[in-house]
């Protein structure tokens, strides 16, 4: 009989610090499964962000470094350049990748670094208590937008993936989500593609994952998934961007 389900080798059997219904657990697992399926656990070097996933190295069982807030792609650039035989990826949230680290993100992409980026978009800063993120939706209430995000003074949700897709050196950008099993399956496929691109030497590949934050959305885990499906995808349409 074929084994249909197993605990990923690349995932430690450590309980996570994530809230109930948080998307990071799913996303960590998808990355670990992809690493196992591509038989590259011993080749992978990951760069963890600052944000809720700051402790990713406690959960993955391969080489990981921390990076200062926003600097993951500068750190990853250098690791890949000195160790081109390794598979190097960053795992970053919206604040890390699209606010404090926008410069590092755009320039690593524009240089066409042969890296894989897993970009978790949950439209808030989770670690610090649910403040407005660059990707917070118009009207969305957060700790720093108590009346809802006012686009007239606080700007629009930043579509960093669409921005990056315009750069000639960027080879692959796809937006996925994890709000139901079918979407989780698609997310896994996209993550695998982004890693395969690096293995093949194709170049800069980014997967944006719309991921739930029930705690700071003030919703139940189920309602948070439904909010992605019904509301968030209208601002951030799913599918291949490049």
């Amino acid at each position, binding site marked *: 009989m074929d084994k249909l389900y197993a605990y990923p080798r690349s995932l430690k059997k450590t309980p996570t610090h994530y809230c109930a219904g948080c998307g990071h657990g799913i996303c960590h697992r998808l990355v670990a499964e992809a690493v196992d399926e591509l038989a590259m656990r011993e080749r992978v070097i990951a760069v963890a962000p600052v944000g809720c996933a700051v402790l990713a190295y406690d959960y993955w069982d391969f080489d990981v*470094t921390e990076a200062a807030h926003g600097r993951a792609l500068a750190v990853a650039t250098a690791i890949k350049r000195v160790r081109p035989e*390794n598979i190097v990826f960053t795992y970053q949230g919206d604040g890390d990748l699209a606010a404090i680290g926008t410069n590092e993100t755009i320039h690593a992409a524009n240089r066409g670094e042969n890296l894989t980026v897993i970009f978790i978009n949950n439209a808030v800063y989770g670690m610090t208590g649910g403040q407005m993120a660059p990707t917070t939706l118009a009207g969305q209430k957060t700790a720093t937008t108590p009346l809802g995000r006012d686009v007239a003074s606080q700007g629009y949700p930043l579509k960093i993936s669409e921005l990056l897709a315009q750069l000639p050196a960027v080879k692959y950008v796809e937006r996925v989500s994890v709000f139901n099993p079918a979407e989780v399956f698609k997310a896994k496929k996209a993550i695998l593609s982004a890693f395969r691109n690096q293995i093949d030497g194709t170049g800069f590949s980014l997967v944006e994952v719309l991921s739930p934050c029930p705690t700071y959305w003030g919703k139940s885990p189920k309602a948070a998934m439904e909010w992605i499906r019904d509301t968030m995808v209208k601002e951030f349409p799913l599918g291949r961007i490049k």
Partner: protein
Amino acid sequence: MAGKRILMAGNEAIAEGAIQAGLEFYAGYPITPQNELTAYMAAQMPARGKVFIQAESELAAINMVFGASAAGARAMTSSSSPGISLKQEGISYMAGCRLPGVIVNMMRGGPGLGNIAPSQSDYFQATRGGGHGDYRTIVLAPGSVQECYDLMFDAFDLADWYRTPVMVLGDGMLGQMMEPVAFKPASIQEKPPVPKPWALTGARGRQANIIRSLLLKDGALEALNKELQATYAKIQKKEQRWEEYRLDGARVIIVAYGIMARVAKNIVTSMRAQGARVGLIRPLTLWPFPVTPFAEKKKSVVKYLVVEMSYGQMVEDVKLALECRQPVRFFGRAGGAIPSEKEIVAQVKALLHG
């Protein structure tokens, strides 16, 4: 090329010294007065099979050094004062993650954007840590173009041995001036690399390596801090370096480093020729500060004159080293001004006859 002497600018000598010392990765961002260093790296590193990146910012450059170092490579960046301020975040992270690396600061006038004239006003920033948290960086201060080259070998060795960032603190004048440089023999250049079992290379045949400074468990961060302090204590004990010049019977000792010590040395030579009992202590390591030569002279009747291109920074370390037992006079100019020979001689004479 050993044995031959080559005319080089200080900035180029630093770059060539670093490459010969085994530099594998360089990232930099343009800023005057150290652009020759970056240009030298751009021309030489790829040609010699190494990595050069012009980073999008000083922040990116230092974090690239962080990444290259995490992956086990000898890595460095260079800049000048305002750029070094920007790099402090990354230097603090490197200290916290115990990552080696070399940061070159060819100081210019400050504060703020200041100007591009030589200065020594970043002494406090360099020797007190510079960024957030309880850490130190080893600080080496070359005083000639030859030393710019020579000290790069020490900088990378010290960084690797102690797993700490090392700063090379020069100034705009040292970077621009040209002097002949003799290269070390190839046997010294080709030393075996320091083993780095902690580096991220992929978890093949070993447990996963993690590089982190975030330590939330009770007592874990205090334990890291104690480990760092133990390392710093060892560095303070073993790595103090300085030059003594004409201290025999000296009644006044000038204390100066870098380019300022060059001026001071000439003054000592000419004043000695006239019979004045003047000497020089030139710290080569600014941190650890060389307290030993001062401790040895605690009981003698000596007056000190500290000369800096700042308004008095290293003078605090001299006073600490002397435990305020002997008189210490300070003379300095900053903001692009350089203390002249005439001004310094007048200060020495005031002490000799005071």
